[in-house]
């Protein structure tokens, strides 16, 4: 067997094909036995030049591309893009759009449902990486119910292309609200089962407690966002602190990491991030229920300001000549803050679309955080950051 001798270290390529890296991520890991001495991420295997494509397609045509920026939480990515464009258009009176109220509620309802399904994937994958295969399938079977609802409404199970500038592509399907309510009830029970199965398991806690603790200062400096930032103890959630859409009408708590693992844990370790995601699922269920209660009934008229689903004509007119300028709009995706920095030159094509994603900045902390961990801990770390490669590479 060939072993490159660099001192006594082994260089492993946790290569693009790897069951634990959740996508085509390559980590060049230099280990001293089991303990890692250096880690250099090598990304770009999934780079699809979405930002360059944004300069070639029209404003409303870019929505399916935002689906693919993070296909696990497409609704949230859609939401971020359409909110960013609507914010650009709202700077001038001719182009300001009045989104129907029902469309706003449905946007938030579906964004939160997609947050739940994205967390199911993230939590399930994390437990699977730890070796417990059963909770992964329990979580995914719950996600299937959400996918079914989305499929009935949008026609797709994963990349929905459901929101458009001005509202939604179509209204909810008939009977959607009862279905969602029933599904949420089942989901609550399933989450309790899931937690009894794995979250309080001593082996699971031992794998995650105290592993890769990120201090709040490091988290802020290295651009961790979303559950990763809150897991380190920083109480910041864009939905509450910089509300977009109609999030200020909803009451929900923001879970923050508090060394949930007890004596073995450290603040900001993998278990904290894991528990923060679990609690976020419960909070999303709350928001969904409030949205269903407060939503105005459908009026059947597309651009009815209360019960319609899209201000289509106004949006078409506005997108032909949007204001010149730029906007940076931030939304709270399941993976953290998704920011769209869009520069408009007044034409129907965007001039520059920059997508800032939570997973990309989460990768930036790897070189600092990983040395000293064991190889098995690295797997736990990647799972706890919930890194999704399409977001990293765009």
């Amino acid at each position: 067997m060939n072993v490159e001798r660099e001192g006594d270290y082994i260089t492993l390529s946790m290569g693009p094909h790897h069951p634990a890296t959740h996508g085509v991520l390559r980590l060049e890991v230099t280990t001293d036995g089991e303990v890692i001495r250096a880690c250099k991420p090598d990304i770009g295997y999934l780079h699809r030049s979405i930002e360059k494509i944004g300069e070639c397609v029209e404003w409303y045509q870019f929505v399916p591309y935002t689906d693919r920026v993070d296909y696990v939480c497409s609704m949230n990515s859609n939401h971020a893009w359409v909110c960013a464009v609507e914010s650009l258009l709202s700077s001038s009176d001719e182009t300001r759009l009045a989104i129907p109220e029902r469309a706003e509620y449905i946007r938030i309802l579906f964004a939160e449902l997609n947050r739940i399904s994205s967390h199911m994937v993230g939590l399930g994958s994390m437990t699977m990486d730890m070796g417990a295969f059963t909770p992964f399938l329990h979580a995914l079977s719950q996600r299937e119910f959400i996918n079914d609802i989305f499929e009935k409404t949008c026609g797709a199970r994963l990349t929905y292309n459901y929101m458009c500038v001005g509202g939604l592509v179509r209204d909810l399907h008939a009977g959607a609200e009862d279905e969602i309510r029933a599904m949420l009830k089942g989901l609550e029970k399933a989450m309790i089962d899931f937690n009894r199965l794995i979250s309080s398991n001593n082996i699971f806690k031992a794998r995650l407690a105290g592993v890769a603790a990120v201090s709040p200062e490091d988290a802020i400096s290295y651009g961790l966002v979303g559950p990763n930032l809150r897991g380190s103890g920083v109480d910041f959630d864009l939905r509450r602190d910089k509300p977009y859409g109609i999030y200020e009408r909803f009451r929900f708590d923001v879970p923050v990491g508090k060394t949930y693992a007890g004596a073995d844990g450290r603040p900001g370790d993998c278990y904290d991030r894991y528990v923060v995601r679990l609690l976020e699922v419960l909070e999303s269920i709350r928001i969904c229920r409030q949205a269903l209660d407060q939503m105005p009934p459908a009026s059947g008229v597309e651009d009815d300001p209360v019960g319609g689903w899209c201000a289509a004509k106004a949006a078409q007119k506005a997108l032909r000549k949007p204001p010149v300028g730029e906007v940076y709009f931030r939304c709270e995706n399941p993976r953290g803050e998704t920011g769209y920095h869009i520069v408009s030159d007044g034409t129907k094509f965007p001039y520059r679309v920059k997508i800032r994603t939570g997973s990309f900045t989460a990768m930036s902390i790897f070189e600092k955080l990983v040395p000293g961990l064991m190889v098995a801990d690295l797997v736990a770390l990647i799972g706890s950051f919930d890194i999704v490669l399409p977001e990293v590479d765009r």
Partner: protein
Amino acid sequence: MALSFDAIFAKVQVRFPSTSAGSAPNGARWVEVPPPDALEVATFLKTDPDLAFDSLCCLSGIDLLKYPAAEKDGPTSDDLVCAYDLHSLEHRHEVRMKVRVPRAHPETPSVESVWGVAGYFEREIFDLLGVEFQGHHDLRRILTPQDWVGHPLRKDYVYPKAYGGVELKREGQTFESGPYK
């Protein structure tokens, strides 16, 4: 306490007279910083207790080659711009800082020592736009392969005809149509 843009800019300009305020027709405003001062302004923005911009939300690169002039028939430029979107978790205010570098020698100091996340953002801008950040510990391509030629997000980017011995066009396409024009 959240400060308005004017208050923030006033504090910055007092310390660094070379900065100026820029604005766009849609109401966006930013602090324009010349490249040599970028690192000091960034450090000041982060460490000053009233500003406390501890979070670099987004660092995007913009190529101004095809951007329309500010006034009708006014001058256009071909500079490259680095736009830093900053946010303060303590005071909950935001500001945008822009650094314009000329296309001929696109160098600007790296702010990696101020915000750690800038390491990756700057590598991305170097890869896709060609701006060189001085003082970066490991400035190399991040999204494209290490032997890629050219900076894809530039407006005058020429698509390569082949890479790694493979021709990059589809069936029935010629090198004179589509993106190769």
